[in-house]
């Protein structure tokens, strides 16, 4: 498939979309936003990401349209370059190297040959606004070292600088100062607000600034929620201001409409306020936007606004204050208590999202799939309040069940715990609350684990807690005369010498349960809940515990607090201990990220890769994703950057020409058919379609160039099959599905690569086949073989 290359760390999403103001294209068709080292181009109508502009090697900090050519876009970055892009085609046109770390970028219509950037020169907290002359040259890489100083003592945030009245002056705010620099007169006026410590003026700090497009009027936002409209500021003495006060908390951003007749403001209230005619009594609201408004931008055509929110979301809003599109990235939460989990059903990454929510995030499309409200309580944003935190989550039974634990601790002794069990509902394609257990344990729950073995008829859940117990919960019949129902009850409570239970884990076949009690690991028989044996190795408290899989299922791995990895052989009860540094790790990558890595997860691949080198074999069946402190999601990739780019841009060009998504056509027709079917057979159950984006077959079909596709008559049955719902009794649906995909992929690739795939697959089967086959039931095996037979037949014809 790919020649052996060194592994690279690749940013694959999750970065902040709300880091800077989004920028509209001149025709309001596209919206540009920074996303880590990239610039993303979204369609305002369909919310689809049209392009990802790669090229910067550090965080992108500013975006502006080229004032002389509105089909081009300037971007600046911490890497010290300003790049000019053609955003329609996603091509980098020019790179200007400035040399300093650039914090913000501004362009002006009448100074076409120069742009304004914010840099910090000597001290870390002193920023300057300078103008950079962009030399005219045909080469792609140009040095732009000619800078002219404009203003200093400014804030690094671009929200705190605004150009007004066709670039006659620039206003900058910081702390309690408003500085206005007049380009014609070359003078700076500085206005100070009282900063005394009394209650009334304590929060006078400026937070943002905006300039009226037509009049000499500067709007400034303040920490106490006031908006001040400054006028007459060309006179140091006669300046005056008006106050508009609606926000109760800091004004996060301000923007004038294109004509200047209205002013938009937003803050932590998550309400967009439109002040018409800049009068206090004449205002309109767009409430319930979900999270703090961080940035507001206005399209140059004047028909759209957009707000960037603290939950990594961009909302496109019509002029009449109606939200029209939502672009949602990976929600950043302060603490990711749940860690990274993979939803076995959708392969989505699951983690803490909005407060009290669990977010399902698609790794492939870098997009949030949906939010599950776990806490189900109104979130009141107040710094002093102690909120209910979602601490643990676990999926069981191939995604049929979801267990969550939430807790709220006001004082040391007052702990509120709640465990919720959610069942997956096929009809609504979502999780429905099944059982709520309040105070499942006396103390913090440290681990949550489902028994995932197929042979287990009864779903089983184990919780371990600091109160020294672990509890086994099983699904029982909860039917009464009104309805049939199932619910979860506690089946067994185990403990070991009053030690705190720190973790628990089921073996792969579900026959054994390992529970660690501080430094001791106990093994329990899951049939009888008998203590089988204990392992005691005074190597420190055990933090993580994990059974081996497939061929290694006889091994139990444990990680202790003092960096020791222990491995027990369950058959011989022998112990191996390694320190992470000493033994022979498969692969070490240094300097993977600028920041601390907080969580990692292996995501099973839809298509196994085929690394032959021993060092990369661990990436064959799954991909490793990890989340850094600033919550950008990174992964390892062996592909060269160019290769990674091409398929996406190809695919997106096709989409761009369509005003609506391609899914719309398929889905729309399908729905019509289904409606007819429903009308015909009223007795039938209502069946809803699974989310099309989540079915790999469809996306593969749509994203593969037409000339390499097999004949339509052949694809038809497969395509229809993929749209059908599988029956619930088919518990082993994952495996055939996987195989399906492999075949498909194989068909797409060229011949020589095809051989490769097969070989790889063979090796896989040799490695693992025996173990799997043992566990497969006969019917499943039959099915698997049948599928294999069918699929291989057409491959050989090619």
């Amino acid at each position, binding site marked *: 498939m790919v020649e052996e290359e060194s592994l690279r760390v690749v940013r694959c999403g999750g970065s902040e979309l709300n880091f800077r103001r989004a920028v509209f294209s001149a025709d309001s068709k596209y919206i540009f936003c920074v996303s880590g080292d990239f610039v993303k181009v979204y369609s305002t109508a369909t919310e689809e990401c049209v392009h990802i502009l790669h090229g910067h090697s550090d965080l992108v900090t500013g975006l502006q349209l080229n004032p002389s050519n509105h089909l081009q876009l300037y971007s600046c970055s911490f890497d010290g370059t300003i790049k000019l892009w053609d955003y329609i085609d996603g091509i980098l046109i020019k790179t200007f190297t400035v040399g300093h770390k650039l914090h913000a970028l501004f362009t002006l219509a009448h100074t076409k040959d120069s742009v304004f950037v914010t840099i910090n020169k000597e001290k870390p907290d002193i920023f300057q606004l300078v103008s950079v002359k962009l030399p005219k040259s045909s080469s792609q890489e140009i040095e732009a070292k000619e800078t002219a100083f404009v203003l200093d003592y400014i804030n690094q945030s671009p929200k705190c600088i605004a150009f007004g009245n066709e670039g006659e002056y620039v206003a900058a705010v910081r702390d309690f100062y408003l500085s206005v620099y007049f380009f014609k007169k070359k003078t700076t006026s500085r206005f100070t607000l009282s900063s005394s410590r009394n209650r009334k003026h304590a929060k006078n700090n400026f937070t943002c600034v905006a300039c009226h497009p037509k009049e000499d009027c500067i709007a400034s936002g303040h920490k106490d929620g006031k908006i001040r409209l400054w*006028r*007459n500021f060309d006179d140091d003495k006669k300046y005056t201001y008006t106050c508009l006060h609606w926000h109760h908390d800091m004004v996060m951003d301000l923007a004038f409409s294109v004509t200047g007749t209205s002013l938009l403001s937003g803050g932590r209230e998550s309400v967009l306020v439109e002040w018409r005619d800049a009068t206090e009594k004449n205002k309109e609201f767009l409430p319930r936007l979900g999270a703090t408004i961080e940035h507001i931008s206005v399209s140059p055509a004047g028909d759209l606004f957009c707000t960037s929110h603290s939950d990594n979301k961009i909302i496109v809003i019509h002029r009449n204050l109606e939200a029209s599109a939502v672009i949602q990235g990976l929600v950043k939460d302060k603490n990711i208590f749940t860690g990274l989990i993979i939803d076995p059903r959708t392969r989505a990454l699951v983690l803490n999202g909005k407060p009290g929510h669990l977010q399902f995030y698609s790794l492939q499309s870098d997009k949030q799939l949906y939010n599950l409200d776990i806490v189900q309580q109104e979130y009141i944003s107040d710094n002093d309040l102690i909120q209910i935190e979602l601490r643990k989550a676990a999926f069981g039974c191939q995604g049929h069940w979801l267990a969550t634990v939430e807790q709220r601790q006001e004082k040391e002794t007052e702990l509120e715990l709640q465990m919720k069990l959610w069942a997956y509902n096929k009809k609504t394609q979502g999780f429905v609350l099944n059982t709520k257990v309040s105070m499942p344990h006396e103390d913090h729950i440290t681990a949550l684990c489902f028994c995932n073995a197929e042979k287990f008829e009864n779903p089983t859940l184990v919780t371990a807690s600091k109160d020294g117990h672990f509890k086994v919960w099983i699904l029982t019949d909860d039917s009464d005369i009104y309805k049939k129902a199932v619910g979860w009850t506690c089946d067994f409570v185990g403990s070991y010498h009053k030690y705190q239970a720190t973790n628990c884990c089921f073996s792969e076949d579900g026959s054994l349960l390992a529970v660690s009690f501080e430094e001791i690991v106990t093994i329990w028989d899951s049939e009888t809940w008998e203590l089988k044996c204990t392992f005691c190795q005074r190597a420190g408290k055990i933090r993580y515990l994990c059974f081996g899989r497939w061929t290694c299922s006889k091994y139990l791995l444990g990680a202790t607090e003092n960096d020791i990895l222990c491995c027990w052989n369950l058959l011989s009860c022998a112990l191996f201990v390694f320190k992470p540094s000493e033994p022979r790790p498969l692969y070490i990558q240094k300097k993977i990220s600028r920041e601390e890595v907080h969580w990692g997860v292996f995501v099973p691949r839809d298509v196994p890769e085929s690394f032959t080198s021993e060092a990369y074999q661990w990436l064959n069946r799954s991909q490793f994703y990890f989340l850094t402190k600033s919550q950008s999601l990174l992964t390892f990739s062996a592909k060269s950057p160019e290769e990674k780019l091409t398929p996406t841009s190809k695919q997106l060009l096709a989409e761009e020409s369509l005003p609506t998504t391609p899914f719309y056509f398929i889905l729309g027709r399908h729905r019509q058919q289904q409606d007819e079917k429903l009308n015909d057979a009223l007795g039938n159950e209502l069946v809803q379609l699974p989310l099309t984006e989540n079915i790999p077959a469809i996306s593969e079909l749509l994203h593969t160039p037409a000339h390499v596709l097999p004949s339509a008559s052949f694809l038809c049955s497969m395509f229809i099959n993929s749209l059908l719902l599988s029956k619930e009794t088919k518990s082993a649906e994952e495996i055939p599905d996987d195989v399906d995909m492999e075949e498909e992929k194989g068909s797409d690739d060229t011949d020589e690569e095809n051989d490769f795939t097969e070989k790889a697959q063979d090796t896989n089967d040799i490695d693992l086949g025996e173990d799997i086959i043992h566990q497969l039931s006969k019917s499943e095996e039959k099915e698997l073989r049948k599928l294999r037979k069918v699929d291989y037949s057409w491959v050989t014809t090619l």
Partner: protein
Amino acid sequence: MGEFRVHRVRFFNYVPSGIRCVAYNNQSNRLAVSRTDGTVEIYNLSANYFQEKFFPGHESRTTEALCWAKGQRLFSAGLNGEIIEYDLQALNIKYSMDAFGGPIWSMTASPSGSQLLIGCEDGSVKLFQITSDKIQFERNFDRQKSRILSLSWHPSGTHIAAGSIDYISVFDVKSGSATHKMIVDRRYMGVSKRKCIIWGVTFLSDGTVISVDSAGKVQFWDSATGTLVKSHLIANADVQSIAVSDQEDSFVVGTAEGTVFHFQLVSVTSNSNEKQWVRTKPFQHHTHDVRAVAHSPTALISGGTDTHLVIRPLMEKVEVKNYDAALRKITFPHRRLISCSKKRHLLLFQFAHHLELWRLGSTVATGKNGDILPLSKNADHLLQLKTKGPENIICSSISPCGSWIACSTASRFFLYRLSYERDSISLQRVPKMPAFLRSALQILFSEDSTKLFVASNQGSLHIIQLSEGCFKHLHTFQPQSETVEAMCLLAVSPDGNWLAASGTSAGVRIYGLKELKPHCTVPAYNFPVTALGIAPNTNNLVIAHSDQQVFEYSIPDKQYTEWSRAIQKQGFHHLWLQRDTPITHISFHPKRPMHILLHDAYMFCIIDKSLPLPNDKTLLYNPLSLTNESDVIRRRTAHAFKISKKYKPLLFMELLDERTLVAVERPLDDIIAQLPPPIKKKKFGT
């Protein structure tokens, strides 16, 4: 400073009446304020906002409009249908004249000051010519359907704008006919139930008419075409008043929510001549309706139902950052309403229409500094004296022995004799007051209660000998010069030999009571006198002026004392000069001749002349912690001004005996509690 037992009196149930009109006179920098009880007060803005004159109110004379015309002449008009001119020298009403149009709602003087325009209940607008000593009716304008609530002249004097109910009319002065009628939108928050009352109009020289109305709008009209140009909705309640600056670059409006909004004319862009009116700053200094606003060149002045007169300086107009740049809030009159009988521990409280006599409580308990002593006998309300007739009381006094009470209205003088028999008290009015004692501006009893001094509004001083149940006119000091100037302040020396009297502007005159002859005149000073006091034994006259200067003048030597010269040479502490309120009372300690006791509304001060004077580097207000410091430090930091800010707002403070003080406070919260409830506003977070 010494320790005192203090009677802390809070039962003086005084409520100032609300402000109805404010008129600013640019020439003399004076401000006329009329209150809802008919009182008219004149404040001198140059003299530290001192209330230098006042005209007592009258029950039937509620003023609805107040204006200055022909320079310094002051007119008022009210709901009794009369136009009144005030005599600012003699402090009485010159004449009143019926306008024959029913109640008068509005009045304005022409830009030249020679004509007076009034708007009446019956919808008529009447023009009066101001002659040298009277006013004369000239003609009527076209009669309108409903009452004329507001009027404004075009600065050229050719047109006027009249605000009525639901519409504004523009009149041509020459023809007297209405040229335009501009109908105001009645809608109030989407509901058009109520009528829209035009509370105020202002005609600008460019032909713009600005109106404020009961729907909370400030609207700009083009008077040439009669069309609405711009509308600002600024309040959920009525906008009740408007005042524009002389340059027509800013104006101020007051709303019923207590907010005052400032509008300014600012240029749209720096390089264009186009200008627009922009609402700039709101000021919330009032809790109730702002009924009247005025715009002086450097300040916004507002007053309303909550009885405060607020003077808010415009920072951009203030040249130097001195004390004039601070906000002023005037609540209490700058004169004494309380007198005290030291011997019997009685307090006489003066209200608008009655007097109250209280006996102070007493205690037998003792305690250390700072203790609150329990009362063994509560304060006693002894009697309440109601005056007959509609006129307000001008002044009152109780004699030091407690057996005489005198008070005066604008037309009558009352003298009562009190006799005490154990706990009961009997009151007897002294009949047959002489005709010359018709109205008094100030009444004072001598220390031994044998003489009564009356300052009449004709500028003369009457001395009356009192004895058991009868009185005898001793002498009258006639004003020395031809200018009839009323005397407002009197002080008598404790030995009864000297009488000091001061008018509103001229210096202090001193009369010898033995010879009944004028003794001398204290050199004139630029600022009006706010309090007088003559020290016992030394007969030094202590004079406090409105610019917070204090002088000591030796009457026998006819010159300023050494101490007074010393303090003038060094100058007062800057914090002392920055105080808000004038000193309203000066008294002396009988045993400590070096001490002068004085107070204003926010502090009580004992000046110890034996101690060194403070300079600007020393702390003027001694922090309390210093009392705990060692004696050495205390002695080193001690200076002549011992100030206590414990009691405020302080209306009266007097030494009853060597160790006892009486302090009368009137907490502002108690006043607000007695006012009608303000318009309810939703406050965030409540």
